[in-house]
């Protein structure tokens, strides 16, 4: 086995090209160390392209190799993409957050990956570079290919960054999870929302819950119903009672029954929309 640390992007792409079938991109290795390390590991955590955190053309550009701690400690992210701060701060433990990365969380594709749930609610995009040095952008929600699988081939592609449109003054976002402990416990249910409020009414809502499907799941019917709904207790009640209706909820042998999970989906869906709306109203 060899472990290579790429010092610049051009070298990283050349190493990928030179080791077909044997090489794999590694970031924090918190997931990969527990799976199987590749014959050739390409560590991409020292590249400027994967570790920047900046605002460019009105978008947040977050390096895919930023750690959960780095994201959780970023003031601009906390201010205008709060759901992501809350998600990253809830992952595992301080030790895990200090090494686990944003990109790794998406590509490992655990069905209730916390950061991924927040990214989908925020409508984030992901930028990848391939062997020819060409980049492409995909919506995070379109990256999933099945259970624990994305369409990204980490043997021939590097995720460089995630892009998010920051919340405007009348927008807010929120993330919550329900787990048996506050640390080192995977969530029974997690959820995130991004809302836009105009004159006391929801103009748009993105509402994501997991684990339901292999990918973080948007409650599309409910999102549509909420368009134009008033920001009232009644609306929250409706979210709570209707959220679980449009999805098939599975039991988890380790974590909870399907019935309990359905209940939690309703409760968390209403909570994240409420919190996001409160933030949208506070910011004005």
């Amino acid at each position, binding site marked *: 086995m060899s*472990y290579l*640390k790429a010092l610049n992007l051009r070298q990283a792409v050349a190493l990928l090209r030179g080791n077909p079938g044997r090489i794999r991109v590694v970031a924090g290795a*918190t997931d990969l160390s*527990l799976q199987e390390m590749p014959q050739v590991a390409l*560590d991409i955590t020292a590249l400027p392209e994967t570790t920047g955190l900046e605002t460019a053309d009105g978008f947040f550009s977050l390096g895919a190799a930023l750690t959960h701690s780095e994201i959780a400690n970023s003031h601009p992210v906390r201010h205008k993409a709060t759901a992501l701060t809350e998600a990253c701060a809830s992952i*595992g433990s*301080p*030790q895990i957050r*200090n090494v686990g990365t944003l990109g790794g969380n998406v590509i490992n594709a655990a069905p209730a990956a916390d950061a991924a749930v927040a990214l989908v609610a925020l409508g984030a995009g992901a930028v990848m570079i391939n062997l020819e040095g060409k980049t492409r952008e995909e919506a995070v929600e379109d990256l999933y290919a099945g259970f624990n699988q994305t369409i990204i081939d980490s043997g021939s592609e590097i995720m460089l960054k995630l892009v998010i449109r920051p919340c405007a003054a009348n927008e807010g976002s929120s993330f919550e999870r329900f787990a048996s402990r506050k640390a*080192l416990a995977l969530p029974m249910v997690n959820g995130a929302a991004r809302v836009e409020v105009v004159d006391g009414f929801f103009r748009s809502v993105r509402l994501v819950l997991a684990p339901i499907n292999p990918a973080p799941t948007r409650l599309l019917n409910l999102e549509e119903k909420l368009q134009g709904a008033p920001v009232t207790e009644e609306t929250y009640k409706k979210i709570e009672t209707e959220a679980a209706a449009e999805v098939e909820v599975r039991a988890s042998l380790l974590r909870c029954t399907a019935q309990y999970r359905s209940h939690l989906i309703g409760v968390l869906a209403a909570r994240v929309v409420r919190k996001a709306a409160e933030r949208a109203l506070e910011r004005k």
Partner: protein
Amino acid sequence: MDNQEVVFTLNEELVRVYADPAESLLTVLRDKLGLFGTKVGCGRGECGACTVLLDDQPVNSCLIPFGKVEGRRIETIENLSRGEEYHPIQKAFVEKGAVQCGFCSPGMIMSAHALLKTNPQPSLQEIKTAISGNLCRCTGYKQIEEAIASAAEKKSRR
């Protein structure tokens, strides 16, 4: 497996170690370098017994492929005491009864050490969060929290 040379700073000294880069940092510290202070618990990131500092941040050494430490700074529990002289955090753990079987202590102390480096006067909540990745089967955590608070207080008084 193929060994690789990895140069890094270990407890303030530059070292050069030949080892399998896919091996965990934990295994290399204990089996190659004879530093047994760092404990092996779960081997999967869930107990914190193996906590060391990587560039001043607490990490689970069981999950760090050794190749990753190239050029980085590692600090282990062995760096804390000066010979017979215990580190203030270690003293506080003894004074407050924060050690029972002691298996979690090196990891707990490293998490506390990392906290106090960046936040010399932490709140109780900050202390709790800082050790939330460290499992203790004996003490019930209360004495550990007190020990860290007391070490912080003594440090700020000095």
